[in-house]
C-alpha cells in the first residue's frame, strides 16, 4: 500500500483537527477491518489515517434519554456482551451472523455504517459508479450482487452496511461532528460543530463518482449512535448468507414491531444489500399495522416490500431472496420462525 501519515489523537478536538487537515483527504481508522482492504487495493488514497481508538469519550455504552448511547469506538464484541444491548435483538442478530472473530473483536458499529460498497467494479478500480465511456459497467456486465431497488440512476451497487437496516428500523440517530471554523482570526483554538441526524437520512445515493454514499463531509465523522428505548418493541434481522462464516449478505431485512393484543400497532421494515442505500419498506410496514402477524401476512409484506424491484440482467434471484428475508425477519421478531439453514 501507499505511504500515509498516521495520527493518534486522544481527544475529540484533536481528532477533528487532524481529520480536517490535508483538505480533508484523511481517513478514519477505527477497527480498520475494511479500511486496510481499501488501502491495499489502492481504492482510496488518504494522506493521513486518524486512529480514533484512543479517543476515550467515543467509547462505551450508556443509558441516555431513555435509550442507549453507543460510542463509535465500541467494538461489536463489546456491544454483544453489554447488558444494555440485549433488548436490541436485531443488532445482536447481525453480530451473531458475522461469525468472524477478527471482525467482531475489532469492528465497530459506526465503522460498519460508513463502509464503502463492496461492488467488484468499484473495488477493482472502476470508480464508485463504475462508468466507462459513459456506460455503466454494472448495467451491462456481471451484476449478480448488485441492486434490485433504487437502481435507476448511475449508482447500482448495494449499500454494504449490515447494521444500517436494524439501526434505521430502531429510528436511531447519529451524532456527527466536524471542526467548527476557528473562533476568530489568529485564534488557534478549535471548537466542535455537532449535529444529531436520524440515521435514515445519513445515507445517500450518489449521482457522480465524487459524491459519497453518506452525507459525511470531509473531516466529519460519526461519534455516537443513539437508540431509542427498546421496551415494548420486538425486533429481528434476517440476513441471507451463502456461507456459514464471514460473508457479505446477499439480502437482509430488519424490523421493529410494536404488538399489542396480537395485533401489529407499529412497524418499521428496512432492507439491506438490495439498493444503493438501506431501503425502507414504508408501504409494507404501513400495511402490517392493524393486522395479526401470521406467516401469510409476513409473506405478503415481503412481496409488498419488493413490489417495485427492478432486477438487473443477472440478479432476478435476489427478489425472492429479499422477500424471504422480510418474511423471516417478521416471523423471527415474533418467535414464529421455524428452523432455517
Amino acid at each position, binding site marked *: *500500500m*501507499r*505511504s500515509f501519515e498516521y495520527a493518534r489523537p486522544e481527544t475529540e478536538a484533536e481528532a477533528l483537527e487532524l481529520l480536517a487537515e490535508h483538505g480533508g483527504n484523511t481517513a478514519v481508522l477505527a477497527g480498520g477491518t475494511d479500511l486496510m*482492504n481499501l488501502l491495499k*487495493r*489502492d481504492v482510496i488514497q488518504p494522506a493521513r489515517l486518524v486512529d480514533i481508538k484512543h479517543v476515550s469519550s467515543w467509547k462505551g455504552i450508556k443509558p441516555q434519554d431513555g435509550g442507549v448511547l453507543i460510542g463509535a469506538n465500541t467494538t461489536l464484541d463489546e456491544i454483544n456482551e453489554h447488558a444494555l444491548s440485549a433488548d436490541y435483538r436485531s443488532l445482536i442478530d447481525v453480530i451473531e451472523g458475522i*461469525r468472524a472473530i477478527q471482525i467482531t473483536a475489532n469492528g465497530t458499529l459506526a465503522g460498519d455504517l460508513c463502509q464503502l460498497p*463492496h461492488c*467488484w*467494479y468499484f*473495488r*477493482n*478500480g*472502476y470508480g464508485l459508479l463504475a462508468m*466507462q465511456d459513459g456506460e455503466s*459497467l454494472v448495467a*451491462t*456486465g*456481471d451484476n*449478480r*450482487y448488485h441492486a434490485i431497488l433504487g437502481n435507476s440512476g448511475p449508482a447500482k451497487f448495494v449499500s454494504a452496511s449490515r447494521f444500517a437496516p436494524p439501526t434505521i428500523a430502531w429510528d436511531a440517530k447519529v451524532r456527527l461532528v466536524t471542526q467548527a471554523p476557528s473562533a476568530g482570526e489568529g485564534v488557534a483554538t478549535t471548537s466542535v460543530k455537532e449535529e444529531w441526524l436520524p440515521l435514515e437520512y445519513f445515507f445517500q445515493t450518489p449521482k457522480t463518482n465524487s459524491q459519497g454514499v453518506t452525507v459525511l463531509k470531509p473531516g466529519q465523522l460519526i461519534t455516537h449512535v443513539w437508540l431509542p428505548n427498546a421496551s415494548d418493541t420486538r425486533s429481528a434481522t434476517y440476513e*441471507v*448468507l*451463502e*456461507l*456459514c*462464516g*464471514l*460473508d*457479505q449478505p*446477499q439480502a437482509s431485512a430488519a424490523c421493529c414491531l410494536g404488538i399489542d393484543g396480537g395485533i401489529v400497532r407499529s412497524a418499521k421494515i428496512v432492507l439491506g444489500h438490495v439498493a444503493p442505500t438501506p431501503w425502507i419498506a414504508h408501504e409494507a410496514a404501513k400495511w402490517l399495522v392493524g393486522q395479526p402477524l401470521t406467516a401469510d401476512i409476513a409473506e405478503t409484506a415481503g412481496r409488498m416490500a419488493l413490489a417495485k424491484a427492478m432486477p438487473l440482467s*443477472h*440478479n*432476478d*434471484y435476489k427478489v*425472492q*431472496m429479499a422477500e*424471504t428475508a422480510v418474511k423471516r425477519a417478521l416471523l423471527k421478531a415474533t418467535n414464529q420462525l*421455524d*428452523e*432455517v*439453514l
Partner: protein
Amino acid sequence: MATELKVAWGPRKDNVYLGKEITRLDGVEKASGAAKYAADANPKGCLFAKVLSFKGGAGKVKSLDLSEALKVPGVKAVHAFVKEGDELQWDGALVAAVAAERQEQAEDGVRAIKFMFDAMEHFVDEDDLKGAEAAKRTKAPSERSKGDVDAALKSAAVVHKGHYGIATISHMCLETHGSCTRWEDGKLIVNHSTQNVSGTPANFVSELQKQHNISVDAADVTVLCQFVGGGFGSKFAADDWGVAAAKMSKEAGRPVRLMLDRATELKIAGTRPSGFVDVTIAADKDGKIVAWDSHHWGSNGGMKGGNFNVAQMPYVFGFDNLKVKGTGIMTNSGPDRAWRAPPHPQLCALTDTAIDDIAAKLGKSAVDVFLANIDKTPEKLQATYVAEIKRAAELIGWAKKWHPHGKGGDGDIKRGLGMALHTWGGRAHAGTCTVRINPDGSVESLSGTQDIGTGTRTAIAMVLAETFGITLDAVKVRYGSSVYPRSGPSGGSTTIGGVSGPNRRAAISALGKLFDVVAEKHKVDGNSLTAKGGKIWSGTKEICTWKAGCGLLGMMGIETTGEGPKDDGLTSEQVGGVQMADVSVDTKTGIVRINQFVAVQDCGLIVDLLTAKSQVYGGLIMGIAYSLTEEQILDNKTGRYINADLENYKLPRIGDIGELIVEMYQPDSEYERGVIGLGEPPVIACGAAISNAVANATGVRVPTIPLTAKRVSDALKAAKA
C-alpha cells in the same frame, strides 16, 4: 553366506507402524510457525519484488517504460515480461516486476511504471458454445463412437436429455507461487515453493538461458523446499516469475523474493478447466444404461482451446453404445494447470449427474442404478465399488433416508441424498533415495522429494522404523533439497509409492548388510535374523540390541540406495472410491448446506492411517468448495477476473463443511496390493454427489456446479415456469 532378505511388505498383523494412525512428525513445527516456507525466506540483504499485471480482457502492448520505477527510492531492479507489440491474452498477464528494499517501495515502483495498451476483443463466456462458434473461438471437435446408439435409444425404456456443467476454478494455494533467489559465487540458490524439488533446477537453467541469456550449469543450481503451503498440481515449474526473480537477483547482486500477490495468483497461477455437456442417456426398465450420446465443451484458458479427451467420457463407465463429441473453446483467461485429479472432477460431474437423472426418471434409487451398471466399470474395480457403495449407503443411512427426487419435504427446506463414484491411478513415480545406518544406531533417509503437506516425511520415517524395528525418533528424514538423490514430482498421487518403495528397498538392502555383520560376530545364520522392538533376534532368541548391532559397523556405517517403481509388489495402482452426500436446500433463497458427507475410499496398503484419512477429509473440503461456491467469475463486459479476491472467490468456512464421515476400505486384499497414492481420488466425486443430492431434494437439476444461491434459485424458477 550373505543374508538374503526378500523385498516385500511384512505380514499385516506384525506391523508396528504401518497402517496405524501416526501424527505427522512436523505438526508442531507447522502449527507453531517454526516451519519456514519460501514465502518466509529472508536472507541478508533480500529485496522484495512485486509484479505489474495486466488489467483487462485482452490487449496489445503500446508502450512500456520502466525508467520512472527505477527512480523510486529503494528500487534496485526492474524486469519487463513483455515488449511493445506483444499481446496480453488474459487478465493478470504479467507485464513487469520491480524489486526494492521494502515491499511498499516495490509497490511504489510498480505504480510508477508507464504502461499503455490497445484493448483487443475478448471472449470469456466458457458455457456459451454458440457464442464461441460465432466468435470463431472453437477448435475442431473430436469424436468417438461404439455400438449402435440410435438402435439402443429406440429400444430403451427411458431416455433422458440433460445439460450439465462445472465452472472453472483457480488454484488457491495458501502460500502463493513464488521463490526467493540468490547467487553465491556464480551459483544459484532458490528457496522455491514447489512440488518438484529434484526437477526444477534444470527448468531454471533452460529458462534463464532462453528468456534472459543467462548461463548457469544445472550442477550449480540448488532448489530448496522444506515446506510448501499447497500446490495441488500447480507448482512443478521454475515459472516466469521465479526466473525473473533470479535475473533481477543477478542484476542487483542481492537476493530477491518474489511471491505473487493473491489476485495475480488467482488469475495466472493455474486453473482447473471448465466443462459443459449436452447428454442423451437411455436405460432399460431395470436401470441398465443402454446408450450414451454426449457433446462436451469447455475451456482450459490460455487461448489453448484444449478440452478433455473424448476417450475419457463417459467417466468410469464403458457403456456398450456410445457417441462422444468434444469441443475446446478459446477464452481470454489464465491457462490451466493440473488441479488435483485432472480432469476427473469434471468428468465425474458431467457423467454421474446424468446417471442420477436417468435413475430419477425410472423412479429408482441412484444406488440401485449405479449397482445395476457396475459391470460396465473396469473389471478389477467392480467388487470394490460394490463393497464401497454398500458401506457408504450404510454409513449415510441411505435405505432409511432415501426418497424419490423432489420429495424432500413440505416446507421451504428440502433434504436429499446423492452419490457418485470415481477412480484414479496413483502409481508410484520414479524416485531414488539413500538410506544410512549409522554406527550409533541412528538412521537417515535422504531424497530430493518434498512434503507438500501430505505427510511424506512421516511416511518415510514410518517405513524405515518398521523395517528396522526401531522408534520413529531414531529416523532422520532429509528431503526438500535438490542436492539429495533425485525423486519425482509430487503430482498425480505418485509420491507415497514413490518414496515408500525406494525407502523400503534401500532399508531391506541395508538391513541385510547389517545382519551379515551381526551374524558373523554372533555366529548365527544371517537369514534367521529379524529386527524388532529395538533388538535383533534369531528366531525367538535375542542376539543384541539394535544399537549394539550397529556398533559393529565401524566408522562408515551402511549406506544403500533404493529405486522405484519396481514390479516387486511394494506398490501398485488404480483405486475406486464412493461418496454420498446428504444436503438441505433452502428453496426460497437457493442456499445449500451439507448435512453429512460420506467417503469410502480404497488405496491399497495404507502407510499412515491418520494422514490417509486426512487426505480424504481435505479432498472432501475442497470438493465441497467447488460444489457450492468456489468459481472463477470472468466478466463478459470487461473480460476481467472480477472476483479475484478472498471475499468474492468464495471458499467454504468451517460451518459449511457439515459432518464428514471417512472410512478407508481396507480388507486384507487391499493390503496385499501394496502402496497406492491417495491424493487425488477423494476430491473427484464430490461435485456429482452434491449436485445429485440437491436434485434429489428439490426434484430440479441445477445444471452447473458450483451450486450457488443464484444458480439454485434460477434453476428452481426456470423449472416452475
